[in-house]
């Protein structure tokens, strides 16, 4: 069986414009053979879900540094439920304190990658089918 080519939508949600991380991760995933669609800056949860469904992606990678993660990421999960698209995996990264990250994972986020995460860790996560390391 041919190896599945994963499709990932990356996006900056919220108002901040810190796009260094999302761009570096997008490039690393692309170089690792993942089909990456970068949606760009200031995407609302609604825009992200719309793009994810249209582009038929396997996962959404959300980056934000503004502190709005506990409002915006749960909203993305909620919209996925509403659109019956919970097969799309959600993962994220940025400036997200550890206890918030733990709470987001409880809500259904597959993984939160904090500052200092190696690119290989994220590539491996995608290649394992979006599963955190055992």
């Amino acid at each position, binding site marked *: 069986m041919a190896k599945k080519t994963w499709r990932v939508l990356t996006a900056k949600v919220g108002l901040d414009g*810190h796009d260094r991380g999302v761009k570096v991760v997008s490039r690393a995933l692309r170089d690792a053979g993942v089909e990456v669609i970068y949606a760009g800056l200031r995407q609302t949860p609604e825009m992200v879900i719309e793009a994810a469904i249209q582009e038929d992606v396997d996962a959404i990678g959300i980056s934000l540094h503004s502190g709005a993660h506990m409002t915006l990421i749960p909203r993305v999960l909620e919209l996925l439920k509403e659109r019956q698209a919970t097969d799309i995996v959600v993962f994220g990264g940025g400036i997200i304190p550890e206890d918030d990250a733990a709470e987001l994972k409880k809500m259904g986020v597959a993984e939160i990658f904090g500052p200092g995460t190696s690119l290989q860790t994220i590539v491996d996560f995608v290649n394992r089918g979006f599963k955190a390391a055992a």
Partner: protein
Amino acid sequence: MALRSKTAREEWATRYRSGKRPPAEVATTLSGVPVEPLYTPDDLAGWDYHEKLGFPGDFPYTRGVYPSMYRGQLWTIRQFAGYGTAEETNKRYQFLLSQGQAGLSVAFDMPTLMGYDSDDPLSRGEVGHCGVAIDSLADMETLFSGIGLDGITTSMTINSPAAILYAMYIAVGEKAGVPLEKLGGTLQNDILKEYIAQKEYIFPPEPSMRLVVDTIVFAARHMPRWNAVSVSGYHIREAGSTAVQELAFTLADGMAYVEASIRAGLDVDEFAPRLSFFFDSHTDFFEEIAKFRAARRLWAHIMRDKYKARDPRSWMLRFHTQTAGVSLTRQQVENNVTRTAYEAMAAVLGGTNSLHTNSMDEVLALPTERAAQIALRTQQVLAHETGVASTIDPLGGSYFVESLTDEMERGAREYFDRIEEQGGVLRCIENGFFQHEIADAAFEFERKLEANERIIVGVNAYTEGDSGTVPTLKIGAATEHGQVARLRAVRERRDNTSVSNRLEELKLRARGPDNLMPTLLECVRAYATEGEIMAALKEVFGVYREPILF
């Protein structure tokens, strides 16, 4: 200046290579500039003291812009702060001032930076999170309540809506009876680096530049103690550029503001003395020192030779420095105190005029009061215990530092040519040149880290597994609810007819060529909110969408 004996140097080189431990073949700075194991007078062949350095306070200011530098006055300790509501931030300011800080530096929250009111749907979850929420003059009055604006200087980190917050600050001064000429401070107001790096743009580049020029003209005419623009390399560097790119792109932006202001009818010496700069201080100690020194020398030549400024104050590059946020690591968070201390020392050895030291926990969240205090104390230890303030430009004449300073200058000039060839800064924003250069440098940095070609303690070496968590500052939802309630109260209290008349007037003026500052002042005095003013301007100017690339 040259070595008397080549033989001695060659003998050393032989010993260097044949020792028990073979030395690393290649070493580079953090930005990839190759560095030699040893520098001697041979590396400075033909180097002329007067041409390259001169004396502190003299052209080309390589050694510093003031004759007495830190002997006369220490750099300004200016810690960037702001979170939650204006009332909470006001308390933090009062505390910082009582701890010996000499100037304020306002951090605004994302909705304020992006021109949205706190009750806008797009502001949900963002209010007060990464800075203070300011919606109208009422919040600004609270923010500076009890602080004498004639006794301090205030720096405001705001870009797209800078002219509005500037108007609000002036209006607070008016109410307190402080005349325009006594208000001292700095607006960041550097829109070009927003398109290049930080991405907090709203309007397209041309109307944005018009707003910047309006503030420059207003400050030049009315506010002798005000820096209308702080041309910023910090964000360019944090977005992943190299040191040379930071230097080159920042000075190129500075030249673009100079040219736009001259086109608006100002004489270069009317505004150039009030242009200030803002750089990053990263972890590569000597590279940063060289960058700061090269920046002063380059700017002095550019202003004197290219723009024919005659006032020596126009030649001087004065700058603020912030230690590198991107150098902070989540792993072993306490190590960030050490990194920040080295970065701060590089800034001081590079002759910075003011300095912000990051708190160790800013990689996780806004700093706690404890962490912010350690950051402040780091500067005080540096100023009073290490001796770095006693001798001006103590590394001047170092074979290595001078070689590296020359190299920074050469690299920056090469970029100036490439930018010029493409038609200037605005063209290079439109064609994505800056964005590509930065994205490539950022990726290269990560690649080196992944390949262990670059060591970061606690991240890819000397790891300890995940260390324990540190306490972080939390901004609750109550902040947002409270702010929205205050905003609604302002809207009920004010004269709404007067507000809409002024907003109509603003749109009219925005369509014409007049300076918008007087009209903006009228709007904020009537308690028009930031979001309302920005919405009016968006109607006239439109909004910008960037080309997406990675």
